[in-house]
């Protein structure tokens, strides 16, 4: 099974943005056009993060249907999911998976519902973290503030078995292209978790050799998620994508 290179599209009022350290939003284009380009790249998977939905508590069903209609690849969704009915809407539009935030106050209820209705393969856990001194701590994306919870302790307190992917996003590295947090994989390796693990934040280049190094750190490493702007602005990254897709692990 190859490691996945997942493109993240940050949606705001039906437009695509990139962010830096969960702030400083920059417009990058029309999401439909971006999906068409990613389709031509034969992208592994795309994750739509709708920040408008988080603010308005409204799932933009018609726009999600439009995004699905131009996508012949796996689509995941995150943002503003607080009710079971909202989860139903997302799956009805044709998305294959949702990511729930580890800081969602209704996480357990929504996760159990999703597992029972759509299967655990359709459910991912998104956990953002920052640093306090040298320790990784959970970052709350709703309050946009770090919590006092240590990353590993918090993760192990959650019902990890109901989730497929676990997506770990470094707030400090988000949008910086300064390299991903490889060491977090080592931390998770000793946790006993058997979920596929995705990393996000700081990616500037992804090569087969890096993927091999990450697998060594943790055999459950399953891929990286990166801003769409990397795909669109850096042609060499496109080459890396092609290179990666030729590589078998």
């Amino acid at each position, binding site marked *: 099974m*190859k490691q996945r290179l997942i493109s993240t599209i940050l949606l705001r009022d039906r437009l695509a943005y990139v962010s830096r350290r969960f702030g400083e939003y920059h417009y990058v284009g029309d999401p439909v056009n971006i999906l068409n380009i990613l389709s031509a790249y034969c992208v592994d998977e795309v994750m739509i993060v709708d920040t408008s939905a988080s603010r308005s508590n409204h799932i933009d069903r018609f726009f999600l249907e439009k995004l*699905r209609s131009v996508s*012949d690849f796996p689509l995941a969704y995150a943002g503003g999911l607080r009710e079971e009915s909202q989860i139903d809407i997302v799956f009805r539009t044709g998305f294959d998976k949702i990511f729930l935030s580890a800081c969602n106050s209704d996480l357990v209820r929504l996760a159990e519902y999703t597992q029972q209705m759509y299967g655990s393969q359709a459910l991912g856990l998104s956990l953002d973290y920052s640093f306090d001194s040298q320790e990784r701590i959970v970052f709350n994306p709703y309050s946009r503030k770090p919590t006092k919870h240590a990353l590993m302790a918090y993760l192990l307190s959650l019902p990890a078995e109901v989730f497929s*992917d676990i997506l770990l996003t470094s707030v400090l590295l988000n949008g910086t292209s300064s390299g991903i947090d490889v060491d977090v994989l080592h931390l998770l390796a000793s946790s006993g978790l*058997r979920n596929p693990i995705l990393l996000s934040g700081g990616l500037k280049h992804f090569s087969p050799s890096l993927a091999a190094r990450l697998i060594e750190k943790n055999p459950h490493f399953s891929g990286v998620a990166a801003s769409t702007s990397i795909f669109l602005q850096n042609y060499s990254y496109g080459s890396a994508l092609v290179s990666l897709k030729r590589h078998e692990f």
Partner: protein
Amino acid sequence: MHEVVSSSVRPNSIGILHVGIGNIAAITGSLRRLAVKPVYVERPIDLHGLTHLILPGVGNMNELMLRLRSTKLDKAIMDFSSHGFILGICLGFQALYQYSDEGSCDCLGLLEGVVVPFSSYGQSSTNIGWSKIESFPSTHSHKSPILANSVLAHTFYFTHSFCVPVCSSTTHIVRVANRHITAASNHANIYGTQFHPELSHIHGRSVIQAFISLS
């Protein structure tokens, strides 16, 4: 944008099971790219006039079987299998077998075999990602006509927490952690893929095209 027009496909002859579970929109999108408008099958009567039926993926087996029984579509699909072509995808593929550990429930029983947790095969709890599939030298040595040898050079998208061990209907396998599980099956006019052809770009679409072209 329609890239292929399936001239052999009769209008209103391709159905997608629609009981409120499954990735119907993605399969509909795939068929529309092949210039085919599907019929949504919500009740047994909707099967009338169909030649091909697709059972979609994404869902929980127990919930799917409850809905099939409550709508009497379980028996209707079994009747349909005597003359129509059926393609099960992921969850729909697993539903073709006799029993699933997901929800500990009986399934349609159109293929011999059982569905077990993926964790008993792989290192991870879920199998997610892109992988090549391989022809399986079954005792019947039959090959699935919907999977041309040319597509075996490409990868397909898998995402599942349960799987089907290799069995008599297995035509293709996928390797996981030095073992292998069923990636595709065929027995008579019943077809199934553990991977998602509707999410596997153009090569996946060629699988769907080959299925709807069966006659």
